[in-house]
């Protein structure tokens, strides 16, 4: 295989993981981690200009390039945040140097697995990559080895494994559906071949396969009845991992689901995957919106907010059509940027206050103005207020739904408003009022957080026509 950019975004993290597993020293490894993710990100950007031909295992098309660039970019900024965050954890003794090596190596393995899942042109390879990503995040969630962290890791492990297992069954069924048309062997698992021939597949088999895939990968997306692992995993792991989980891994699972949805969309006799996705999306949204009110742990609260937004995104893709798909893509991008920025802020807040309990923090805007206002800004963005990017995308989702099925739009708006109320109630406790808890200045790196928030603000005011055009193309592709 020739060495091109697609291979590079897999090789760089893999090599970096091997290096980081053996190199000692915090300063060196943290820098190397940032450097490796930066290199991956730049290589991914180069895919916009020259794109290699699809091979039997790897491919890049209009759809996954959006995901790849988003993943590698947030992977890069998070590694910047992680450097300062982990430095503090080392000082306080929550992490030992051995675990630090382990942490950095796992971070790169996770980047590798997510990139592989995105560029895989083979449903089997994609499955293996998502399994690898699950495994690495499980290990990272349990890294503090406290009672709660192990409990969260175990829960994530069991639920994630069951999800992964169901997804494999679905994958096998898709293969079974493909063999009569394409023939036995590796070709019947290649995306590009599958999509080209999907119209002739046995629709009944495809339907059953999609149900398994929706349950399986839906568990990883955090859709409502299967979300139980998500809040624990977000709350107990290191905060950079919460940011990557919310901002990226959920997207990767959703990407897998979208691919299979495209497969079904090509087949005229198969069931429409839309209503299933719309239903699970709405349930997730409304359920998570109500759950936001009673959260006492700040990271757990934002984890529920992630479920809520994944619900909106799944809903938008379920509605389908150029406008809703466009809105879904935009919302996914905006949510990833905003949510990771919020986790960057929350990570430093939790370090300053020495706790994650909402009741024990207060008056952040007075004691740590930069951090506090950054958090306020992030929450305003995630709640979907103008003029920020999430407002634009939520507005598009709502308006496109109103045009087609007003009843669904009413539920959607209800869910969004309930969540908005909850977020502001909680924000009020944390950011304003009487200062509570320790008030030391934070040794934070604000650059990643404000870079994300600035992007979200810009996107809310002005979307570059090139980006709009690109997203419109992808939206058409999604059907």
């Amino acid at each position, binding site marked *: 295989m020739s060495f091109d950019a697609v291979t590079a975004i897999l090789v760089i993290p893999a090599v970096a993981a091997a290096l980081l597993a053996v190199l000692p020293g915090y300063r060196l490894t943290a820098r190397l981690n940032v450097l490796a993710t930066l290199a991956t990100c730049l290589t991914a950007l180069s895919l916009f200009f020259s794109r290699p031909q699809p091979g039997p295992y790897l491919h890049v098309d209009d759809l996954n390039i959006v995901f790849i660039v988003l993943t590698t970019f947030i992977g890069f900024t998070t590694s910047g945040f992680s450097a300062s965050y982990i430095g503090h954890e080392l000082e306080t003794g929550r992490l030992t140097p051995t675990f630090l090596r382990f942490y950095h190596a796992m971070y790169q393995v996770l980047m590798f697995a997510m990139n592989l899942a995105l560029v895989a042109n*083979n449903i*089997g*390879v994609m*499955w*293996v990559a998502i*399994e*690898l990503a699950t*495994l690495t995040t*499980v290990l990272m969630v*349990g890294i503090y080895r406290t*009672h709660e962290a*192990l*409990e969260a*890791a*175990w*829960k994530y*492990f*069991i639920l994630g*494994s*069951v999800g*992964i*297992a*169901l997804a*494999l*069954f679905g994958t*096998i*069924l898709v*293969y*079974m559906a493909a*063999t*009569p048309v394409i023939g*036995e*062997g*590796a070709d*019947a*698992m290649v995306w590009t071949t599958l999509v080209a021939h999907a119209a002739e597949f*046995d629709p*009944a*088999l495809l*339907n*059953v396969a999609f149900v398994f895939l929706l349950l399986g990968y839906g568990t990883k997306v955090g859709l409502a009845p299967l979300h139980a692992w998500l809040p624990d995993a977000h709350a107990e792991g290191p905060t950079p991992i919460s940011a990557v989980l919310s901002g990226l891994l959920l997207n990767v699972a959703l990407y897998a689901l979208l691919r299979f949805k495209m497969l079904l969309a090509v087949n005229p006799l198969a069931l429409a995957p839309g209503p299933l996705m719309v239903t699970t999306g709405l349930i997730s949204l409304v359920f998570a919106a109500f759950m936001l009110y009673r959260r006492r742990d700040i990271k757990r609260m934002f984890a529920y907010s992630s479920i809520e937004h994944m619900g909106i995104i799944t809903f938008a893709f379920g509605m389908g059509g150029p406008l809703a798909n466009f809105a879904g893509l935009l919302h996914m991008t905006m949510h990833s940027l905003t949510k990771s920025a919020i986790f960057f802020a929350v990570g430093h807040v939790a370090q300053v206050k020495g706790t994650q309990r909402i009741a024990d923090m207060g008056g952040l805007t007075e004691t740590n103005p930069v951090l506090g206002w950054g958090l306020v800004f992030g929450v305003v963005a995630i709640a979907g207020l103008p003029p920020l990017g999430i407002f634009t995308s939520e507005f598009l989702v709502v308006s496109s739904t109103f045009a087609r099925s007003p009843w669904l739009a009413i539920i959607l708006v209800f869910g969004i408003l309930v969540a908005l109320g909850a977020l502001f109630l909680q924000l009020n406790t944390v950011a304003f009022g009487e200062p509570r808890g320790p008030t030391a200045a934070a040794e934070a790196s604000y650059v990643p957080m404000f870079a994300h928030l600035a992007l979200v603000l810009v996107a809310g005011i002005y979307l570059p026509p090139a980006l709009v055009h690109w997203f419109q193309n992808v939206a058409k592709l999604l059907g």
Partner: protein
Amino acid sequence: MHSLTFDIAHLLAGTLVLVSFLELYQDRLYALLNVFALHAFVLALSVAWQAYAQGAPHLFVTAAIALVFKAIIIPVVLHRIIVRLGIHREIEKVVGVGPAMLLGMGLVALSMVVMLRVTADADPLAREDLAFALSVVLLGLLMMVTRRNAVSQVVGFMSLENGLVLAATGAKGMPLVVEISVAFSILIAFIVIGIFLFRIRERFDTVDLQALDRFRGERR
């Protein structure tokens, strides 16, 4: 169409479902592990038969993994772990034998109805295999939700995974089966190591090492 090849494949896959039922009502961990070893052994036989019937030598690797790793190593290691944790005599029951069996039968009936209907024009060998495989998967899931002990949950997960391997080998000519079974073995190895390191006794209640040590101290 009902050749000997078909009959033997059918017999082995059917036995796997039966052994899944056996697992369902074992209330002692020792006995459960023995039945699981049998489960993995039947799977190895079944996969080896498919390898022979389909003329696909790489499937023998999958069969060997099932035999060595899942039928021998994992049960032995788990035996040791439960002795170490002092839970080998424990009896657990969340759902009674009767309801569990009835639920299991319902699930098998469901998977037959679903799979046989949707695969009407598929290869009969693959078709029956798939229906049995789905039964094994669902029975494994049932076991996971009716047990509270971490070890028996893992056994449930492993039998679920055996069902997946059965499905993957039944799908004729499917690539990456060996890779997938290796990936699963790694996953399972991690889970088992996890149990050992973190000494998870009850599902999510006592992961606490100290609580466990205190508890064991009382028993001695």
